[in-house]
């Protein structure tokens, strides 16, 4: 197991956003986390990556207890996340967006030479298909490209485990395919991936195993096929349909 969460509880006032969730992610797999809106998926991400402190439970990454560590420390040991609402460094060039994590990882005062750093950044941009945007300001990119820049920036931290928060959310089908392609390539390069995703096409397309959350609780775990047949999962999703009216 590259990542293990043990009995994680996160409360906001009276609301239990993450309720005693335990799961493990194997090395080099793509692990999906799904669930209706407000199920606690993003909160769980925030707990794992150090943005929230859990009330209870432990997070073990590569055998090391990282519970309560700061987000930047967690990123530097190889666990990096992206954001559901993408947060590119809008006022900076695409290349600089990717350079910042490279500097942080490889040394600001010494270490990697500027030429090497730029070469690495260019490789990563090539990898996600953004080479042609190298010198554009991030704010000029359309949504689909921003999502890929977000992944590029996370990859620049040289993660062992990449956590993607709805990488295909709000995208057109074509853009979605591009992002899925990138995720597959990331995985092939030896990086473990956790994905939060709403879109079932994306989930079944890239995930080997899935965990389902509802009201902060884990209600199922298994292959996409197993999970799709799970009664409780069907009920949870039907319930959501009923409430949302869709």
């Amino acid at each position, binding site marked *: 197991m590259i990542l293990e969460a043990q009995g994680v509880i996160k409360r906001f006032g009276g609301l239990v956003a993450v309720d005693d969730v335990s799961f493990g992610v194997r090395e080099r797999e793509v692990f999906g986390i799904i669930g209706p809106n407000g199920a606690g998926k993003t909160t769980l991400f925030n707990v794992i990556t150090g*943005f929230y402190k859990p009330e209870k439970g432990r997070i073990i990454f590569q055998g090391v207890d990282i519970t309560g560590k700061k987000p930047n420390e967690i*990123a*530097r040991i190889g666990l990096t996340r992206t954001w559901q609402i993408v947060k590119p*460094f809008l006022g900076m060039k695409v290349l600089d967006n990717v350079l*910042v*994590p490279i*500097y942080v990882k490889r040394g600001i*005062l010494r270490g990697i030479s500027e030429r090497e*750093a730029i070469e690495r950044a260019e490789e990563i941009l090539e990898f996600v298909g953004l080479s042609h945007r190298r010198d554009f300001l991030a704010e000029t990119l359309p949504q689909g490209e921003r999502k890929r820049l977000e992944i590029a920036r996370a990859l620049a931290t040289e993660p062992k485990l990449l956590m993607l928060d709805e990488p295909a959310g709000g995208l057109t089908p074509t853009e979605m395919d591009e992002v899925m392609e990138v995720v597959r390539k990331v995985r092939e390069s030896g990086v473990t991936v956790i994905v939060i995703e709403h879109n079932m096409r994306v989930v079944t397309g890239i995930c080997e195993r899935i965990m389902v959350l509802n009201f902060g609780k884990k209600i199922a775990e298994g292959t996409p096929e197993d999970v799709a047949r799970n009664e409780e999962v069907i009920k949870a999703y039907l319930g959501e349909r009923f409430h949302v009216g869709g």
Partner: protein
Amino acid sequence: MLGITGDLALRIAKYYALAFILLLPLPLAGDYVTHLAIMIMLYSITAASLDILVGYTGRLSLGHAAFYAIGAYTSTLLSMNLGVSPWVGILAGGMLASLFGLVLGIPSLKLRGPYLAISTLGFGVIVQLMLINLDWLTRGPLGIPGIPPLPGGPLDLRSKFSFYYVALMLTSVAVYTLHMISRSRIGKVLMSIREDEDAALSVGVNVPLFKVLAFIISTFFAGLSGGLYAHYIRYISPAMSALSESISILSMTIIGGFGTLTGPLMGAAMLTILQELLRPYLEYRYLIYGALIVIVMKFFPSGIYGFVQFLSRKVRG
């Protein structure tokens, strides 16, 4: 080193060299113009130093003049009471200002927006009150006259003519250094914090460390320029730390165009000259000054330099 290629360092250095050469004959225009130019240069260092904090890191300060004053008082007191050379005193002033920058930077880490603005404002007010009330050290509200001039070997640095060249050299070096920092790896990391703290954290940036570093860098240069001012004007008073001074410096940085480093230099020049031009209209001076700030901020929010860049892009197509 630090992520600046030799190429870039050289290209920017060329601009500075060109400006340096163009500014060489300026003292021929007489003492009045020379004095004005020196004041513009001193403000340039301060406004540019503030840009590291405001424009690059996204941290507002309404108390920057305090660091300018700390630099000035440190150098003055060291040279007058302990006989330290003003050159060393100025450096010490920068360092002490930096130390105070650290003192202000750490507790204000979590503050944003107006919370940070008022805390830094409060810091400026407290420094001013200290300078007024610790009169056994600072001689209180009357200030300190008779500060020794900079020793210049064969040059008499009491004359505006010679001081101008010293100031020109030091300003070039100081502002060029700030420019290099802004383009360095540190500069880019600071910008990532300005753009989005959480995103910066999530890719491994030690945000608190770099916020404090921005304070240290910025206040060091403000302190330097305060020390230079003290040995140029040779009189200092607690008014140097007044809120109006901090606002003046901030106006230069922002009206000039923050986050560009070139903008604050233009802002320092323009606002200093404007103040002079408005001098005959004594009463209406601040009416016009205030109106100008309102107009620029409403219609040219990225400042004068931003507007110039916009125009030049238009012209080039």
